């Protein structure tokens, strides 16, 4: 289908220029971080250069060989994955209920769920610390995963409900007539139909759990400390270890970039929470 509002002929239209400028604006700060991560500290402080004069991978070597560094990544990955699994498991049936049935208090419940997405994490930092300490979960991965469900479950319900609304109800009814039980229908027929929606919801849960710092830092001390909190230790008595800090930053961008690549065809629809 040809678009009517296509660009003017020619390679370098105004539209392309806008996009190039915007993407340069996005990429230059990231490039600067990569640039710094490949320099030695002496070079960072003494010479100002837009590319590394003495290319070095020592900063990355420091991180990848020191357990206190790379365990930060492992910890982050563990609680992010736990969070995605928990969020989707509880959100799937709930989203189905919201998309198919009306029941007492459904609208209030839906808004109440969303209201947790609006809760400033700063409000919950201290009570969470006390709650998870009192049940003996402080400094565990599951504590951070549970804390992050506060904003991820409402979001997952919201996204999934949008996608489920797009599936005609006749499909459910036909399946029941054919003798499918609800669990079997849900896992065999319904979930494959909204597979892209599940992927999008997983992407968002991953994203918001991965980027969050305040709660994950408050709820951990050693055993489950996330990489984002580990990074703060590059400030030492001898000054900032800029190179290692930059390298650690670059390494936190990698998982996100990989995930984006896998869901690239659904990103736009996903950001619209299935509502386009």
């Amino acid at each position: 289908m040809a678009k009517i509002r296509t660009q003017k002929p020619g390679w370098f239209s105004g539209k392309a220029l806008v996009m190039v400028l915007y993407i340069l604006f996005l990429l230059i700060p990231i490039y600067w971080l990569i640039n710094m991560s490949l320099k030695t500290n002496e070079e960072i402080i003494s010479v100002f250069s837009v590319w590394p004069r003495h290319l070095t991978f020592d900063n990355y070597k420091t991180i990848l060989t020191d357990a206190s560094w790379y365990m930060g990544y492992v910890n982050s990955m563990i609680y992010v994955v736990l969070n995605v699994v928990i969020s989707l498991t509880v959100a799937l049936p709930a989203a189905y209920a919201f998309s198919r049935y009306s029941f007492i208090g459904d609208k209030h419940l839906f808004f109440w769920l969303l209201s947790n997405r609006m809760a400033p994490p700063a409000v919950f930092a201290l009570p969470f610390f006390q709650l998870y300490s009192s049940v003996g979960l402080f400094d565990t991965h599951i504590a951070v995963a549970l804390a992050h469900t506060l904003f991820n479950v409402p979001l997952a319900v919201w996204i999934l409900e949008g996608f489920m609304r797009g599936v005609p109800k006749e499909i459910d009814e036909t399946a029941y007539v054919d003798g499918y039980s609800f669990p079997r229908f849900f896992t065999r027929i319904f979930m494959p139909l909204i597979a892209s929606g599940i992927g999008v919801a997983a992407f968002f849960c991953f994203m918001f759990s991965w980027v969050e710092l305040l709660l994950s830092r408050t709820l951990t001390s050693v055993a489950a400390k996330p990489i984002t909190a580990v990074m703060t230790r590059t400030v030492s008595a001898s000054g900032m270890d800029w190179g290692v800090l930059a390298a650690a930053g670059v390494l936190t961008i990698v998982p996100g970039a990989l995930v984006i690549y896998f869901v690239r065809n659904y990103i736009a629809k996903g950001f619209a929470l299935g509502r386009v």
Partner: protein
Amino acid sequence: MQKTVNQKAWFLVLPVFLLVAFSAVIPLMTVVNYSVQDTFGNNQFFWVGLEWFSELLHSERLHAALGRQIVFSSIILAIEVPLGVFIALNMPQKGLWASVCLVLMALPLLIPWNVVGTIWQIFGRVDIGLLGHTLAALGIDYNYTQDPLDAWVTVIVMDVWHWTSLVALLAYAGLQSIPQAYYQAAKIDQASRWSVFWFIELPKMQGVLMIAILIRFMDSFMIYTEPFVVTGGGPGNATTFLSIDLVKMALGQFDLGPAAAFSLMYFLTVMLVSWVFYTVMTNLDKKAGL
């Protein structure tokens, strides 16, 4: 879609209900509990009623932080929403370039927030950052750790860098859903580019733009990590937004009572504004016949 009335649906919602009740209601009750009491340590608490609330309502510190927060949220919404729509209108429609643009644009959204702060902290430094160094070379006196205006500009540019793509991607999704027939009709009517935007594209984007504004409002109003890493709330209190002030009060000074009262008022404000957005949004959904 017509929904069937079925009270058993509650069983499907129950897991979510219990989980969120555990991770939201219990902590919130703790906050309410603190907000009406005072403590001198040793876990001894005294009932003070609404004292903290009335004290906070007249506290200049809170008013100043709230003022800064409102200014910040307004500025970034005023920049990011039009800019995001503009970018979406210029995005390639399909093919390899569309994918490349999507992936690159989504990149800042997946960077941990304190790394975003770190990136801009480094980028803006006069000694080692490209931005700071370039501005200094151009003879512009720029120092985000000393000058309040520079700090504000840095924090706002950082937020635009971080989140404009979200608005753009949403608007792009809205644009993609417009049927070709609309554009053909507009062409037959010899509509100008501007009227195509105003009468076709903008109304069709209304729903997704409301989502964009809602999400950007909520998240900018709760912003903590990025400005904290870059400016630490300074210079002075110039960039101390609500969350930064709250964390300072609760975890820094351990003023539990006032911090809890602050938390509740903060939460209620965000919720109230979001409720207005949400109501408008669901009404739009109904109008669209969803």
